[in-house]
């Protein structure tokens, strides 16, 4: 280990003697996109995230000075041990300087600790854990896109503002469901709404009819679904079957994304409220990014997470160029927090001292089949939470705060 470090130090000394303008390890800037390439997160991130990272590199010109930028991909298969092994190999042997994407909280939390040890960088874009900017914050990673707090905050308060005052929760009976119910419920009450009831279902239930009938008879305006995956799809489908939305109640998904709606279909999904920080059809800039993305990814539109990869990688490249080397991860992350962000997907924004990327969160309503004019024409924007309010206030559990 010490020998290898010594060799590295010698090598970089030799390099710095050769190249006077910048110090880049092995003269290539390597970015590793680490995610789930074929499993449950493959559609929302997966190969599309690699495309998004490549778009950022191309937009930056493909090199910094005369140092080329290279992207490699890794499949962690949602297994923490595999993810950590790939990351270690990348950082120790393959000359990777930054790891991006990293869906699955157990893996992203582990890798944030790893990059801190090795003084490299992680741009975490597809993980929802609030802990990344609280007790697990490090000076070597930034947290892009969204987290559970911002989802609950945006849906909870924006739906109340648009008239959905009384809420009923249909909650998956495990830690994630309970957290989402509690957080969103707090925001509903803060915004002047009320929670009239809740019912909990076991994880991976098949028949939701009795739960839905209770939600229906509660007379709540909004039925919030604090569940995900097949539970979410089942409850939405069966709600459509019973005609719950026709009778005037709205459905809100607390952890639902573009690809979920796409695979659910508009017939079952119409009218659902959900929150995301990005949608391809928000403005001319997002549409131009989406166009580039679609051309390289079989016509699919980018998800928030893929847009996050693009935005995060682009900002990382700006910081590396400003710092002038790729070896000191801590300095690069500090520079990322110093520079304002700007890109096609999220417009202007900033990175907070705790590593949190700030941008607005939007409330969307899923269109009906009649409103939709194209295969990816899925959302209608109905609300917005400003960047300053969309995310959790600085948490003193993060040791970067208040120093």
């Amino acid at each position, binding site marked *: 280990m010490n020998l290898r470090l010594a060799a590295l130090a010698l090598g970089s000394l030799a390099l710095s003697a050769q190249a006077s303008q910048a110090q880049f390890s092995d003269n290539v800037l390597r970015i590793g996109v680490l995610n789930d390439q074929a499993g449950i997160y493959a559609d929302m991130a997966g190969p599309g995230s690699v495309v998004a990272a490549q778009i950022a590199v191309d937009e930056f010109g493909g090199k910094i000075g005369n140092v080329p930028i290279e992207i490699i991909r890794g499949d962690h298969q949602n297994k923490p041990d595999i993810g950590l092994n790939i990351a270690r190999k990348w950082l120790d042997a393959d000359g990777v300087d930054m790891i991006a994407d990293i869906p699955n909280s157990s893996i992203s939390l582990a890798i944030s600790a790893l990059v801190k040890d090795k003084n490299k960088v992680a741009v975490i874009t597809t993980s929802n854990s609030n802990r990344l900017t609280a007790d697990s914050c490090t000076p070597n990673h930034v947290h892009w896109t969204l987290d559970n707090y911002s989802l609950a905050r945006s849906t909870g308060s924006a739906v109340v503002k648009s008239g959905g005052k009384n809420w009923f929760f249909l909650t998956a009976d495990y830690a994630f469901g309970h957290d989402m119910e509690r957080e969103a419920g707090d925001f509903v009450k803060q915004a002047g709404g009320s929670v009239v009831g809740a019912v909990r279902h076991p994880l*991976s239930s098949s028949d939701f*009819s*009795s739960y839905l009938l209770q939600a229906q008879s509660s007379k709540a305006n909004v039925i919030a679904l604090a569940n995900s995956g097949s539970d979410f799809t089942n409850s939405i*489908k069966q709600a459509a079957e*019973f005609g719950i939305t026709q009778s005037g109640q709205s459905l809100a998904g607390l952890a639902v994304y573009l690809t979920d709606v796409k695979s659910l279909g508009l017939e079952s999904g119409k009218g659902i409220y959900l929150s995301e920080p990005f949608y391809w059809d928000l403005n001319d800039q997002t549409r131009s990014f989406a166009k580039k993305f679609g051309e390289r990814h079989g016509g699919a539109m980018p998800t928030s997470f893929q847009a996050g990869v693009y935005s995060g990688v682009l900002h990382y490249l700006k910081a590396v160029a400003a710092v002038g080397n790729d070896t000191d991860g801590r300095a690069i992350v500090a520079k990322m927090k110093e520079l304002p962000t700007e890109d096609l997907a999220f417009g202007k924004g900033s990175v907070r001292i705790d590593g949190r990327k700030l941008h607005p969160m939007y409330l969307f309503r899923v269109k009906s089949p009649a409103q939709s004019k194209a295969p990816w024409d899925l959302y209608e924007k109905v609300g917005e939470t400003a960047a300053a309010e969309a995310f959790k206030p600085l948490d003193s559990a993060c040791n970067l705060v208040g120093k």
Partner: protein
Amino acid sequence: MLIHVLNGLVYGGLLYLVAVGLVLIFGLRQVVNFAHGSLFMLGAYVAYATIAIAGFWIGLLAAAIVLALLGLLLDRTVFRQLQDQDPIVTVLVTFGLLLVLEDFVRTVWGRDNLTVAVPQLLQGTVDIAGASFPIYRLFVIAAAAVIGAGLTIWLKTSRVGLYVRAFAADPVTTGMQGVDTERVSASVVAVGAGLAGLSGAIASPLLALSPAMGGSILIESFIVVVVGGFGSFSGAFVAALVIGQLQNFGIVFVPSIASMVPFLLMMAILIYRPEGLAGKAS
């Protein structure tokens, strides 16, 4: 209230179609088939694939036929070999089969939750006692009733049905009477697997399709079989209806322990009436 009873019938009906296949396979091959839930799941996927090109009704038919053929194949290659084995061997092998089938589906169709639309003809709701109830759910109840009745008539009146009942009661004596037990067994396993496939196809517009969807229905079907009495058709029928209702009313009245209720019933049956509702004490 009536709506809840109907919902219980929907779920009970699906459970019955799956459980009766378990009973058939156990009766003929003495194999406790842990892979049965994955046959249900596979039926839903076959329906999904066929419905996309040939429409809903062909999809139902295709699921039943494909799964019946798979049943024949499994009988020949797996169940027949297992029938004289230690129960733990049959559990291990059929559980392994479940994992193989789940991975097969994962490879072919991916892990996403797929959905099947309710057929045009059965879309919408009807008003029942002041509440709206989906037409498709009424169809599920009717389909389960028709299939259940057909199966009962077949078992009670046809010659093969007679063999099946005789075989389930005493395989050795039945074989000695000159009944071709291999052929009877093969066809009955095919019927059992076909029913699992058909119920998966019928359930596909109600449920999100995922490779793991067979798991929960398998567990509840086993509860049905145990409560009804292993090897009893009428017992499975009664138990499926009871569990369907318990499940629903559990959610309505005691939501926090609803998922425990069927297990509590099973435990009570195992303690106080281990032969099951319809079984004979041995």
